[in-house]
């Protein structure tokens, strides 16, 4: 039986090519649209996800991590007094202006972190080190934005808010969702660049003591420190993602793109599998005339669909990984995590089986006279 399904498929190589092209197109479309969506979600909150902090303390009611207002530095001492808090480190993320060599201004987001804290700093460092940021007016940018910021290489000197900024390192693939790249520097430098007062900060990043209960410490911090909000890392990430996802046209567009990709993919696969089944409809009629039950015919049709799905998936996942790899050096990230690859395999199988179920109806309602036509 597997023999018939397999042989039916490979016998007509042109038809097989058309079928696989349809499936590959549909799956690559789904992979790219969902990869863009995941990339979008990741990019909006990567700075939170990679911070290493367990809890974030902010001014009350901030909409997202890129829109914080200042809180007094004294809050840090209150935080440190709460049981279960191992460390509480000052942190800034603030929009500032970067002066290009042409004299034009480019908005960037300065990220100031305590260099010894191990929280809130850059990751994927490809040139330089965190220690290089100990120097006065030193910054680190992502190599994706070299051209945008007019940075030639290590040692390049620019101006942030009219103050000197010397590039001492580069990160790789730390994208900003907004058009403003992240620029990492020490907390102290960031206060100068962001024109914050000496006793002001935008965030406190909290590291819990080993064994401390995050929810309990969060509650205690909220009760102990007046005039702040306390979020877990996951809450801050979700808050930021939801803001960009649902409060901006870009988020809704990406979400709709993913949904549309899925819909178009399903229609293309359904049409492709249906056409492939209908091509063999006379053979299925012959099988029935020979005494095959509907179950046998269903199995052959579903096997054909699954074989097509399998081959289509292998080709599509290969193409998807190439596209995702290519996106690493572009501004829009396309993520293809193993869970999505696996999900796409299941989706491909379900789409193909679903489409074959539609074709099965056609096969089981064959006009008997069809098999007698010469």
């Amino acid at each position, binding site marked *: 039986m597997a023999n*018939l399904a397999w*042989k039916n498929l490979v016998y007509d190589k042109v038809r097989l090519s058309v079928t696989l092209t349809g499936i590959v197109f549909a799956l690559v479309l789904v992979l790219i649209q969902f990869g863009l969506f995941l990339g979008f979600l990741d990019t909006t909150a990567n700075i939170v996800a990679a911070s290493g902090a367990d809890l974030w303390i902010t001014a009350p009611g901030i909409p997202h991590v890129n829109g914080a207002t200042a809180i007094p530095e004294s809050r840090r001492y209150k935080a440190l007094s709460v049981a279960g808090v191992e460390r509480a480190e000052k942190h800034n993320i603030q929009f500032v202006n970067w002066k290009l060599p042409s004299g034009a201004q480019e908005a960037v987001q300065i990220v100031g972190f305590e260099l010894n804290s191990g929280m809130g700093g850059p990751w994927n460092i490809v040139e330089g080190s965190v220690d290089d940021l100990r120097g006065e007016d030193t910054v680190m940018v992502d190599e994706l934005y070299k051209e945008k910021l007019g940075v030639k290489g290590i040692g390049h000197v620019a101006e942030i808010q009219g103050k000197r900024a010397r590039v001492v390192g580069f990160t790789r693939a730390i994208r900003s969702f907004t058009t403003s790249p992240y620029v990492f520097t020490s907390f102290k430098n960031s206060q100068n660049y962001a024109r914050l007062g000496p006793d002001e900060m935008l965030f406190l990043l909290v590291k819990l003591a080993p064994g401390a209960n995050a929810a309990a410490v969060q509650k205690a911090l909220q009760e102990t420190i007046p005039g702040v909000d306390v979020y877990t890392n996951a809450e801050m990430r979700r808050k930021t993602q939801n803001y960009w996802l649902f409060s901006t046209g870009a988020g809704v567009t990406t979400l709709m793109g993913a949904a549309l990709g899925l819909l178009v993919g399903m229609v293309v696969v359904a049409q492709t599998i249906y056409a492939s089944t209908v091509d063999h409809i006379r053979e299925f009629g*012959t099988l029935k005339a*020979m*005494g095959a*039950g*509907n179950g046998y015919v269903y199995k052959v049709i579903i096997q054909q669909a699954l074989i097509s799905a399998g081959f289509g998936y292998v080709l599509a996942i290969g193409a998807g990984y190439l596209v995702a790899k290519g996106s690493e050096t572009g501004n829009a990230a396309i993520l293809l995590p193993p869970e999505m690859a696996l999900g796409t395999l299941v989706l491909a199988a379900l789409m193909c089986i679903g489409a074959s179920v539609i074709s099965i109806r056609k096969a089981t309602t064959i006009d008997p*006279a069809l098999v*007698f036509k010469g």
Partner: protein
Amino acid sequence: MQNRIEIRNLSKVYGEGSTAVKALDGVSLDVRQGETMMLLGPSGSGKTTLLSVMGGILRPTSGSVKVNGIEISNLNETRLPKVRLDNIGFIFQGFNLFPALTTLENVEIAIELRGRSIPKGRARQLLEAVGLGDKLHAYPANLSGGQKQRVAIARALAGNPPIILADEPTAALDSTSGQIVMDLLSNLARQEQRAVVIVTHDARVLHYGDRIVHITDGRMTDLPEAA
């Protein structure tokens, strides 16, 4: 001789109301074991419809159809395939071979459908019996019309059915191939005691029939015995 097919007062109507077309109208006939029956009639007379009803592919509007003693006119779709599988072998005008399968595989799939132990080598034996022992691994596209029809005969015999229903088996063949095919079919009745029903337009093959049944406008017009 035992009746393999018994048809009584058979009617088949396509469509409903003003668009209804009566394809068969009050047909009654028996097909006996060891008999070759030729169904003759102009295009659209109802021959193929009658063959379809005999084979349990098409359900009659009214009347009774017994295949090897089993009333099939009211059998549901889950039981009909088994009746076809155990009792009937079809041969089609257009051969209806699976183009993606070799000659041998085309016969083997009919054996596989039975899902029971059939002696290994049965497919090969059947193909050798129809003179295609040297074409076991050829694909239908590489066979002549006559060879294809002989594969179809071997396939129809895979389950050793007591009834063979053939629709215009020589229509697409030259006279030599047609004669070979008709000899094979005729021998299935005479030597192997199967009931063979052949729909045909081909006057060259009428003499192979033990009985010729004329169908006109869905009715049997006469039942002359063949010479």
